[in-house]
């Protein structure tokens, strides 16, 4: 052991010549509301005050360590890793006492792995309140030494005020404290445990330290000085105290023992610590121990090289040979129609040339196993019937295409591999996989099973404070009443600049406080809130960006070669998923491999459509092999006609507007359509130039101008399309820089950079850059372009355009993958509209519009809609053949799951009971169709379903929604409801809600055959008994079917309007015609037209339209404009509302929400582009009909 008290040396080469000090006990904001400073602020402060080393010891977590070590590396500091552990079952205080706190520092990799394991075990054992048993800590610290370093790897500090020794001494149990210290010595070893001394300038601090030092000496232990840091500077103290109050759920006016009493827990310099400790007899040694411990702790998490998980390979294959073999297979499958590509003896075919190049780069980067791993997951998903699709830059890769990871041919669509991968790339390439949402969990389980829990986990998401949440926490802690806090936070936007938070919103929010109803806020409280509001805003601004808690990433899965517990602790999420404690940025810093398995409901809708088609027609369209050159004419007609409601990505009114102008004809047009309608191009004013050039181009091609009323401002600038180098690169986007791949090509072909340099150039341009870096890049670009003979003016112009491009660049391959899904969904809607819309409705919530809008679209496509029926509906939306012979067509049947109070489980139970089929939905694909056991009456339904969880509210919903209308005997809904009221108490008295055992028994029915038989027999017996019991309660002992009830009172039948209201209340949609249809005559009397009638009105004319508001949006890029979509029985109409009417609209929308029978009436000016109609609002009113 080296004594470094006088002169400490550290791995980074720094040294200290005075009484050196390293901080070994420090919380960051990753301790979640236990610290007032970020990791970055703490490390920056440490560097500023001259600390050579410091440890991050967050409370029961290592979530910040990767960021910490990375930041330390930037500042040249030695970053030590540790954690403060809450230790339970203390031998002194017992199991019931508050946990004692120890600081544990990792000396080497083995110690770090043990620390991770301790935390993982605690997290998995009690996710809500993880604690570490003392025995487990003792075992980890005293475990055998690491073979490489010869040290067990963990150092224990006895903790600050919450350590056992301090607590005992504060309670004046000196002798017990001595016993404990001796026990620590024997359990951990004298050189592995240090008695921690903290001087926070509190009363009796010195006395306590003196006692601790005395005990340490008697027990043969050494002392170490720490400052138990909670914030970087004194200025951060209010934030720390505030967060402590947030954590404790108290206001700042409430005293609490866990709150800090002063600001002394800030990061102190070696001089400050020397001043505090040097005068004490034990002080110099305690200070010296800090640097000695610091020099012993040598753990580095940051890796330069990424490691992919090990993939099982066939015997005799290496990763390289296996990848090559799979690619060869892929060539034969994907390019069966291109003999040159399949011919191994023709290396000059574009496919083989590209494949050889990609395999070479993959080999250089040793990424073979990475690709094999992704391939394995994708192949497994497909074999399980789960729809999956790669997205993002991976679609630039031919290898990814050949392995089936992506579905767009990169050769045919001129995608650039270097955007995805090049030899200079650092870190793992990014592959995102879209998975059908409803089966994503299955795939995650598969990955966990295949790679085991030791190597697979999900990524966490660090939730940081944003303005609303920050103001909420700050205001609550400052004692604002909760209803007022709610009102204040609603006045803040979700995203705003924290710096300007106080200055921008203070006056508005003060007005909110001032106008808060006096009956809800007494005068003194109002005054206090007004006084404290500026402080709340300023604290909220400072809170923004600090980590608040961890959540689960929405799709990131990590696969590791080494066991996970050697890397980081694992946590259990609320839904039982294992997740690492770090976010995706830290994953990259650690050199780990991550996939995003992102749930996409549209893929579920596609898969369900295919299932419905196969089920009803016996054929299954080859949706993954649709022709793109040329594309399907019906599909493209549908897109050009703007009938894109429920089509992926192009169903919004903004897209309708764009489609009317761009009129896509090819698949590549769809790729551009996807990339063009983004905030970037819209903000950069790129959309109109593109449209103008495209129309000009089309007009020249067709020798005639199309009758489109788009602004035209003379001849377009043809520099970009006629330049010999830029022209071919930008031709398909009409001379507009739209894709990131185009930047690479420009940098490569125009400025002579290699593709690897060009990608570095693109990345640098896309991130925050300093002026100096920009100038360096500019010089490099200009030098290269001038050397290739370009003129200075042209070079400057191109560089300027690229600089501007940074805000709106989109990856072409990503757009291509989206375009593929657009094309597929449009194809299904064009050819199988009923099937597709039924599947899309089952996949809700998905897309832009609510379900009733989709159903209205079905009606407008002349697809009959059938109501929900207890004996005919499935749990989801289905299709049925209706109509007379020769005039048959497909209709959509509403599913049982749609009924309020019924839900998924009861809907499946109804099916199970009706058909006696297994309960799980995936089992429905079984080919053998069992005999249906239809419900024959309401009491039959109640008797059979009551034991399986039919509640009163669900039964009432079934009756009111019309699901029971077809049950014999025929009767009006009101009468049936009366019947139910009479029936229910009798059934309820004999049919208890199923016990857990019954449910388990039923769920276990799909186990062994014997279990199934036993379960069924038991249930049959139970139902029989219940039926008998029910019959006995009747006045006459007669069979249930012939039981006579008292005559019903004369109840008036429900009107059609009543039934429609019930439909919307209980189903959220209706099989009946649109309610405005019945009111059309009345609307005409008010001079209000139907939406379909707008096709006869010329542009610029004012007209009045009424409808339901089915969508309202105020995008930040629209400069205060609000965009509505109105719906009536004839169609949908986009409506633009100017900013001056925004407040009025807001009030009207609140009225409409409160009274659904009200309809919005818009007086506005008609705008037309081909089939597209919209209104620019001049006046808004609400009409009550």
């Amino acid at each position, binding site marked *: 052991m080296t004594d470094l008290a006088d002169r400490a040396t550290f791995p980074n080469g720094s040294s200290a010549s005075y009484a050196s000090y390293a901080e070994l006990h420090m919380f960051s904001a990753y301790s979640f509301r236990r610290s007032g400073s970020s990791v970055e602020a703490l490390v920056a402060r440490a560097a500023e005050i001259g600390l050579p080393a410091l440890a991050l010891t967050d409370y029961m977590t290592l979530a910040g360590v990767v960021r910490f070590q990375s930041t330390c590396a930037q500042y040249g500091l030695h970053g030590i890793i540790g954690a403060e552990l809450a230790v339970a079952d203390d031998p002194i205080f017992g199991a019931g006492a508050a946990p004692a706190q120890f600081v544990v520092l990792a000396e080497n990799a083995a110690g770090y792995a043990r620390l991770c394991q301790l935390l993982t075990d605690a997290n998995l054992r009690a996710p809500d309140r993880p604690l570490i048993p003392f025995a487990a800590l003792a075992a980890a610290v005293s475990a055998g030494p690491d073979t490489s370093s010869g040290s067990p790897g963990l150092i224990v500090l006895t903790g600050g005020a919450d350590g056992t020794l301090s607590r005992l001494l504060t309670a004046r149990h000196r002798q017990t404290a001595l016993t404990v210290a001796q026990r620590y010595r024997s359990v951990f070893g004298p050189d592995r445990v240090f008695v921690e001394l903290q001087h926070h300038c*509190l009363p009796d*601090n010195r006395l306590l330290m003196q006692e601790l030092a005395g005990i340490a000496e008697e027990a043969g232990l050494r002392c170490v000085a720490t400052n138990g840091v909670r914030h970087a500077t004194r200025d951060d103290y209010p934030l720390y105290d505030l967060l402590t109050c947030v954590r404790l759920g108290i206001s700042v006016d409430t005293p609490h023992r866990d709150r800090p*009493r002063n600001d002394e827990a800030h990061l102190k310099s070696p001089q400050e610590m020397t001043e505090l400790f040097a005068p004490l007899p034990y002080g110099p040694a305690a200070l010296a121990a800090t640097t000695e411990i610091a020099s012993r702790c040598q753990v580095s998490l940051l890796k330069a090289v990424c490691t992919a998980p090990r993939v099982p390979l066939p015997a005799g294959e290496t990763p390289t040979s296996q990848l090559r073999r799979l690619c060869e297979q892929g060539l034969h499958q994907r390019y069966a129609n291109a003999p040159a590509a399949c011919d191994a003896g023709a290396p000059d075919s574009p496919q083989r040339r590209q494949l050889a190049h990609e395999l070479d780069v993959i080999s250089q980067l040793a990424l073979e196993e990475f690709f094999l791993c992704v391939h394995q997951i994708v192949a497994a998903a497909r074999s399980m019937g789960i729809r999956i699709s790669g997205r993002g830059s991976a679609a630039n890769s031919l290898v990814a295409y050949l392995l089936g990871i992506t579905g767009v041919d990169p050769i045919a669509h001129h995608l650039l591999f270097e955007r995805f991968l090049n030899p200079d790339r650092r870190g793992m390439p990014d592959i995102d996989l879209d998975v059908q949402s409803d089966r994503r969990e299955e795939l995650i389980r598969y990955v966990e099973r295949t790679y085991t829990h030791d190597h697979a986990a999900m990524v966490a998401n660090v939730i940081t404070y944003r303005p609303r949440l920050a103001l909420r926490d700050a205001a609550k802690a400052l004692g604002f009443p909760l209803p007022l806090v709610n009102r204040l936070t609603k006045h803040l936007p979700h995203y705003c600049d924290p710096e300007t938070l106080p200055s921008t919103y203070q006056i508005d929010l003060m007005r909110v406080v*001032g106008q808060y109803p*006096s009956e809800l806020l007494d005068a003194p409280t109002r005054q206090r809130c007004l*006084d*404290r509001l500026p402080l709340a805003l300023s604290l909220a601004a400072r809170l923004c960006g600090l980590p608040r808690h961890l959540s689960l990433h929405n799709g990131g899965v990590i696969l590791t070669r080494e066991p996970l517990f050697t890397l980081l602790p694992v946590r259990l999420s609320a839904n039982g998923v294992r997740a690492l404690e770090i976010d995706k940025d830290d994953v990259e810093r650690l050199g780990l491999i991550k996939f995003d398995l992102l749930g996409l409901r549209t893929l579920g809708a596609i898969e369900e459509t295919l299932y419905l088609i196969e089920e009803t027609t016996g054929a299954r369209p080859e949706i993954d092999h649709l022709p793109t050159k040329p594309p399907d004419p019906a599909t493209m007609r549908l897109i050009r006609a703007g009938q894109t409601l429920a089509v992926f990505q192009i169903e919004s009114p903004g897209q309708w507007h764009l489609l009317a102008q761009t009129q896509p004809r090819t698949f590549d047009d769809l790729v551009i359509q996807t990339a063009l309608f983004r905030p970037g191009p819209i903000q950069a004013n790129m959309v109109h130039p593109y449209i103008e050039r495209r129309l000009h181009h089309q007009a020249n091609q067709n020798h005639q101008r199309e009758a489109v009323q788009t602004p035209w401002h003379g001849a377009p600038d043809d520099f970009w399309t006629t330049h010999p180098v830029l022209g071919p690169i930008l031709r398909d986007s009409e001379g507009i820089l739209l894709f990131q791949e185009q930047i690479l090509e420009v940098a490569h072909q125009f400025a002579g950079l290699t593709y690897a340099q060009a990608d570095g150039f693109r990345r640098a341009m896309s991130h925050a850059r300093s002026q100096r870096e920009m100038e360096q890049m500019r010089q490099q670009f200009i030098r290269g372009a001038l050397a290739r003979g370009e003129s200075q003016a042209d070079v400057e112009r191109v560089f300027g355009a690229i600089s501007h491009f940074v805000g709106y660049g989109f990856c072409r391959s990503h757009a291509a993958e989206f375009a593929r899904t657009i094309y597929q969904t449009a194809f299904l809607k064009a050819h199988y509209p009923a099937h597709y819309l039924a599947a899309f409705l089952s996949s809700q919530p998905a897309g832009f519009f609510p379900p009733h809008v989709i159903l209205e679209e079905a009606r407008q496509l002349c697809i009959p809609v059938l109501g929900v029926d207890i004996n005919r509906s499935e749990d989801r939306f289905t299709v049925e053949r209706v109509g007379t012979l020769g005039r048959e067509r497909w209709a959509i049947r509403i599913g049982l799951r749609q009924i309020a109070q019924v839900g998924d489980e009861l809907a499946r139970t109804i099916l199970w009971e009706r058909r006696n089929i297994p309960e799980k939905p995936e089992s429905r694909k079984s080919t053998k169709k069992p005999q249906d056991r239809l419900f024959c009456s309401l009491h039959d339904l109640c008797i059979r379903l009551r034991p399986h969880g039919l509640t009163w509210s669900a039964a009432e919903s079934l009756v009111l929604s019309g699901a029971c209308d077809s049950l014999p005997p025929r009767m009006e809904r009101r009468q049936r409801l009366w019947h139910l009221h009479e029936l229910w108490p009798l059934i309820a008295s004999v049919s208890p809600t199923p016990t857990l055992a019954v449910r388990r028994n039923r769920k276990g029915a799909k186990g062994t055959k014997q279990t199934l038989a036993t379960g069924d027999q038991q249930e049959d017996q139970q139902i029989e008994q219940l039926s008998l019991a029910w019959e006995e309660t009747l006045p006459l002992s007669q069979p249930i079917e012939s039981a006579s009830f008292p005559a019903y009172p004369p109840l008036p039948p429900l009107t059609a309007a009543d039934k429609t209201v019930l439909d919307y209340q209980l189903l959220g949609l209706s099989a009946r015609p649109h309610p405005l249809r019945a009111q059309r005559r009345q609307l005409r009397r008010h001079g209000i037209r139907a939406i379909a009638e707008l096709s006869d009105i010329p542009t610029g004319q004012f007209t009045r339209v009424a409808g339901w508001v089915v969508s309202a949006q105020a995008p930040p890029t629209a400069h205060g404009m609000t965009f509505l979509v109105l719906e009536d029985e004839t169609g949908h109409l986009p409506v633009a509302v100017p900013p001056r009417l925004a407040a009025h609209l807001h009030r009207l929308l609140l009225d409409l929400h409160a009274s659904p029978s009200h309809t919005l009436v818009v007086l506005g000016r008609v705008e037309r582009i081909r089939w597209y109609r919209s209104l620019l609002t001049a006046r808004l009113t609400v009409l009550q009909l």
Partner: protein
Amino acid sequence: MTRRYRHPIRVHLKNDQPYRFTWRDTTYRVRAILAVWHLRDRWWSSASLDSSTSHALATAGPAPRQCEQQESDRLYYRLDCSPDLHCEIYHDRASGLWILDRIYD
């Protein structure tokens, strides 16, 4: 037993620490500093807006002004002084005042 006074006093410092002070016309010399501690409280009171401003913005009628206690950031010393006096004094960092807080019997 102690008795609280909270009287302002004038303190002479040596090496940034109390050396002697005068209270009730008697000068006391510090024999020993027995303890030092630091308390910071009510930090949320110092940033409060002036009541006239906030009232102007409030439209819910006049409200009685309830004064919040001011922020305190105090460095306490427990001293053994000559002539015989065992006391606690503190330095209020916000106001710069020295206060004789309490005297031990």
